[in-house]
């Protein structure tokens, strides 16, 4: 039988290789919070095809537009669309901006306008933290209760943190490279990933539990190894269907949910990996550590 667990150092190294750059970026640059969190204004408009948006810069925007926003940022998106971001503006200013754009460029299509007050943003930050803590506690308690041993719960949660770190890191890097922002949907994706992650982990743990009952004399390492081998094809096949769905959403889906789908995709990939290659090896390391302590 192929011994997976002999390579557990390699699995941990792969995780580190993915997490460390993200972590570095996270510490150095952080995430780019969207106006959902910070408060502010976002205005998305489509300009006529006659305008070459690729070469547009803030300085070229009409003076009235520049004057209306403080902290103005310009992002050019596909379909000749631009997104203007800045501090919160009121509805009258928004009209002024639209008028100025219209006089400068001709027929424009206002697509989206969002103005979030700072109060709402702060509330969302608190809500996000509460939701994450609640989700993590629910999962730990459930797994610990279900498997009657603390180590299963702890390892499942560690694998979950692994996944959270991966996604945060990926989005921190995406923020630096592509200006991707994290918004309320990102939080949703993060929470969904938690459930993904633990979903797969439970399936492996379940098999470990079953094998232990059926073969009480086998050493733990062999049991674990057998459980991984037996669940691997299921785990991969299932993840492939989810990844197919999410990948088509990322590549072909609507613009408004592209990064949401991307976060879910990253979550699905790392969730699959971490169940087999993080949670289970951790379980073994836990046992090793216990033995060494006992000695």
């Amino acid at each position: 039988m192929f011994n997976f667990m002999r390579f557990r150092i390699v699995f941990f190294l792969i995780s580190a290789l993915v997490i460390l750059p993200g972590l570095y970026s996270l510490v150095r640059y952080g995430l780019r919070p969207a106006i959902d969190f910070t408060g502010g204004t976002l205005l998305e408009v489509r300009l006529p095809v006659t305008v070459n948006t690729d070469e547009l810069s803030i300085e070229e925007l009409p003076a009235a537009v520049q004057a209306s926003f403080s902290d103005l940022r310009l992002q050019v998106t596909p379909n000749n669309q631009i997104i203007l971001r800045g501090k919160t503006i009121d509805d009258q200013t928004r009209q002024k901006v639209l008028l100025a754009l219209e006089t400068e460029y001709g027929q424009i299509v206002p697509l989206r306008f969002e103005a979030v007050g700072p109060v709402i943003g702060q509330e969302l930050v608190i809500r996000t933290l509460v939701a994450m803590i609640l989700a993590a506690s629910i999962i730990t308690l459930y797994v610990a209760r279900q498997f009657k041993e603390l180590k299963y719960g702890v390892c499942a949660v560690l694998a979950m943190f692994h996944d959270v770190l991966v996604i945060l890191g990926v989005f921190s890097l995406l923020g630096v490279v592509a200006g991707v922002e994290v918004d309320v949907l990102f939080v949703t994706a993060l929470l969904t990933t938690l459930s993904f992650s633990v979903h797969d982990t439970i399936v492996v743990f379940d098999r470990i539990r079953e094998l232990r009952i059926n073969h009480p004399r086998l050493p733990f390492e062999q049991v674990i190894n057998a459980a991984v081998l037996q669940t691997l094809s299921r785990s991969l096949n299932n993840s492939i269907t989810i990844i197919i769905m999410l990948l088509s959403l990322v590549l072909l889906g609507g613009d408004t949910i592209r990064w949401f789908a991307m976060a879910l995709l990253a979550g699905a990939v790392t969730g699959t990996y971490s169940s087999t290659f993080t949670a289970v090896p951790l379980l073994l390391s836990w046992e090793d550590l216990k033995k060494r302590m006992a000695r």
Partner: protein
Amino acid sequence: MLRVWQTFSFILVLSVIAAVIALPPARPISFQALGRDFNFTIGAPVIDTTILGQRFNPQFSLKQGLDIQGGMQVVLRADMTKVAESDRETALQAAQSVIARRVDLYGISESVVQTSQQGNDYRLLVELPGVEEPEQALQLVGRTALLEFRLESSNSAALANATASAILSPSYFLDAFQPTGLTGQELRRATVQFDPQTNEPTIGLEFSPKGTELFSQITQANVGKVLAIFIDEFPVALPQINQPILDGQAVMSGGFGVDEAQQLAIQLNAGALPVPIEVLEQRVVGASLGQESINRTIQAGLIGLGLVMIFMIFNYGFKGFLAVMALGLYGLYTVAMYKVIGVTLTVPGIAGLLLSIGMAVDSNILIFERMKDELRVGRPFAIAMEKGFGRAWNSIKDANTVTILISLLLINPLNLSFLNTSGLVRGFGMTLLLGILISLFTGLVVTRTFLRLFLQAPSAKNIIEREISGGKDV
């Protein structure tokens, strides 16, 4: 065997009902394929019958969220600094009713005006679907209510002769009733009371000292006349002065129902407790953005779905094909369920639906892999199948419980203020939750029945029957 057929018939009936609900209203379809034109009409049959004397004509439609059909969402904060603590809830309710009425008058259908309290903040959440001119709508919503008492003017004889079209013009009532100088500022509050003798609901008005003085002057001089109450220049009540009222405590009676009286009291309080309103959050989505997003998302979903189907058939052969059939039913049930429950469909919601399709096959995969294991050990096919289902159930149960708990956290069904309240996130959570529940049914019941019916090794038939009727393990 009988039980399998029973379950199968149940699935069949359920699917027909779901199909009737899920299909969109009849619409002609025409497209070109293989060099030929196809023209036909598909859609749900119209149900319109009478059952036990009740007309039964269910109309099911998918509600679209603001991010799909376009529109405006605003979160408003009501400034309560000038309102006494005990009156704040009444004042918020009053503001809600006034805004809802204005929005209705403006002709926005399916609008939502909700109140919420966030610590010491009193808020209103207003959703106006289809509104693309936010500035007007915002003025409509943000204006403080203006309540005035207006007295019937002396040339009412001329007004009595006015034609119907004149009555319908907005200025008619403004001409017919002249301002008295008494406004909502002088009204303390309006409450629903019950007449001690007739037990009919009435509305009690309480005035401030200055209001008491003004009100007594007006009522003394104008017994017998109508003293109309206007909100936003629109009459909401036309009570007659029966006698002079000197103590500032008036009672309006006039055959209201309890609901009607309550509604009126709320509206009057909007004038009595005017609260300035401030915009906390505003989101406007153009309908074009929503339509583009949804079209592309659905397209992406269909492509993904096709690939998942190919993958399942390629990997599991005929079993995979049966799972795909079950997946088709899954889609049907899901859409039907959305319509019955009234799930508001948002773009993230659709993503949740698609994600749940990817997850729906999970129970099938778990079971099929288990079956493979059992077959490998050398058990006969039928037993392997039943064991596969039995053994996989543990994992399926545990794994899905966690996802259900997380989706409940996202939906926030108890409306807890420290959890998420965003409609987008709730939409996603809702579709995820429904997806898991329905997928459990299709994955466990439907696929199992299909497998039992269509995938039997003949030699094992007897064993199955024995197993279904008797003990679980053979």
